């Protein structure tokens, strides 16, 4: 396989981790977050600092996950205090704040970012395999989570917070947990991205990325792990396979978002579900 294929596989793997982890927060627990890119960025920067300081790969990756998770936990407090619409706007704020802050920090390389990050020592192939393994683990964890008691509690909070509270589910703790979990995985993805590119700039983690991730979740079907994975793969590869699409990437993303919400609010998963139901009936 060529280097290009490895880099495509790596990007797909990273995007899967990001979209599936966002789905844990938004899809399972019903907390609308438009700042996922910021946590991914926090993880990438933390891992980059560790790597530059000479720490081994696992330490840097864990540092990325921990830093992002802590940040996510803090932002999660906003979800406890604020209602839905306010939370959406606040997480947008987190997104802009992250990029705006990093751009001005000289110890983080400011606008120029951090370059010459030491590699993982695995090579392009090894990196791609490592990323895909982590992506597979994220999917497995998401599927497990969905069936577990914790996933049940997340859904209860997401469906109807008041009702969840009445049956003694501590909604606030679960929201915080969902944020911490989802953002830690995003931070891990950030660490992997750092080793993949060995060069990071603040603008890679901006609001457009957060919206793109939300688009993947919504187009895939909010709450459905497989739907989100499918949408992520399609939306990531489409512009690569059809080069001309790349120029119209945002036009197509925006258009798809409008069409999906307007005509199939359940996303890909919703379409597949209603098709199989119809087939069974026939």
């Amino acid at each position: 396989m060529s280097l290009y294929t490895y880099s495509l596989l790596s990007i797909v793997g990273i995007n899967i981790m990001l979209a599936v982890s966002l789905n844990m927060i938004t899809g399972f627990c019903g907390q609308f977050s438009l700042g996922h890119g910021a946590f991914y960025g926090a993880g990438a920067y933390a891992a980059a600092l560790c790597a530059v300081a000479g720490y081994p790969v696992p330490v840097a990756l864990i540092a990325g996950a921990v830093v992002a998770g802590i940040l996510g936990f803090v932002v999660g407090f906003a979800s406890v205090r604020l209602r839905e619409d306010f939370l959406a706007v606040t997480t947008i704020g987190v997104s802009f704040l992250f990029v705006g802050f990093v751009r001005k920090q000289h110890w983080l390389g400011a606008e120029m970012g951090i370059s010459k990050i030491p590699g993982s020592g695995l090579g392009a192939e090894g990196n791609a395999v490592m990323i895909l393994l982590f992506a597979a683990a994220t999917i497995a964890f998401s599927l497990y989570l969905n069936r577990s008691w914790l996933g049940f509690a997340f859904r209860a909070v997401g469906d109807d917070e008041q009702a969840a509270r009445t049956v003694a589910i501590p909604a606030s703790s679960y929201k915080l947990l969902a944020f911490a979990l989802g953002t830690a995985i995003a931070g891990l993805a950030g660490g992997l991205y750092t080793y993949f590119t060995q060069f990071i700039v603040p603008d890679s983690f901006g609001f457009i990325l957060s919206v793109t991730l939300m688009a993947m979740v919504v187009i895939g079907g909010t709450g459905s792990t497989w739907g989100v994975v499918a949408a992520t793969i399609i939306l990531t590869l489409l512009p690569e396979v059809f080069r001309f699409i790349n120029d119209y990437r945002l036009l197509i993303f925006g258009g798809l978002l409008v069409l999906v919400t307007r005509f199939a609010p359940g996303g890909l998963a919703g379409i597949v579900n209603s098709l199989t139901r119809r087939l069974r009936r026939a």
Partner: protein
Amino acid sequence: MDPDPVYYVDLTLNGLIFGAMYALMAIGLTLVYGLLRILHIAHAAVYAFGAFITVIVANATGSIALGIVVAIVASALLGPAIYRLLYEPLLKHPPYVAMIASMGLLIFMEDGFRILFGEQGLTFTRNPYPTEIHQLFGVTINTVQIAMIVLSVVCLTALALFTTRTRVGVAWRATVSNPTIATSFGVDAIKVRYLNFMIGSALAALAGALIALLNNFVEPSMGFVVSYKALAIIVLGGLGSMRGTLIASLALGLVESFGTILVGSYLDRDALAFLFLIIVLMVRPQGLTGARA
């Protein structure tokens, strides 16, 4: 730092002018929110649309005033069309669905502008106003800035009078604050929605046109950051409140104006708005003035 008091007067004036533009943008948003509980992010696409129409018509006819009028009329039609085609069918879903659709529409329209008019956007072929400098009480101000102050004061005052002194306006306000009760008193809630999108979009187009005149150019992404700032403003103002929105707009204009000077080396201008938002929300989760929860 410059200790000259005129410098601070300049900063204050600039802050208030930007605040006034934010207010023109955000009033429409807050009204849509009050009426439909939708965060109408695509409002900023209407704003950019208004700016583009202004430049195109002004360059084609040579009259900037005509450009602004056409932009306002076209946007006043575009806004209700967005409601009819996009939001109305989505009202039965939870509000975040419409918000995502709105975000999709903003991205779609912005990229559409980019493809149609190019990455660089458009410039006025003849626009003398931003370089016409006046001295007022020792403060330097250009013609566009004066127009911004005058037009926003006129429009917002007219809106305030309209909503407090006329039957239609009172019905409108009643519907924004409680659609069910207003409907049972015989208000046609559907007509109010169209009126709402019309007026809100017209104001956004005016803001777009004025900003275009001030910068002397329009670019496809001009609405992008503004759209989210306007969201921050209506949240700050306590969603759905016109007075709160006005106060929050002016406050944000001032915070940005002074903040860029005072802490500009730690945070950029756009991040500042959201830092302000997050601090206010942590202290007062209901917004600056918010009475309703």
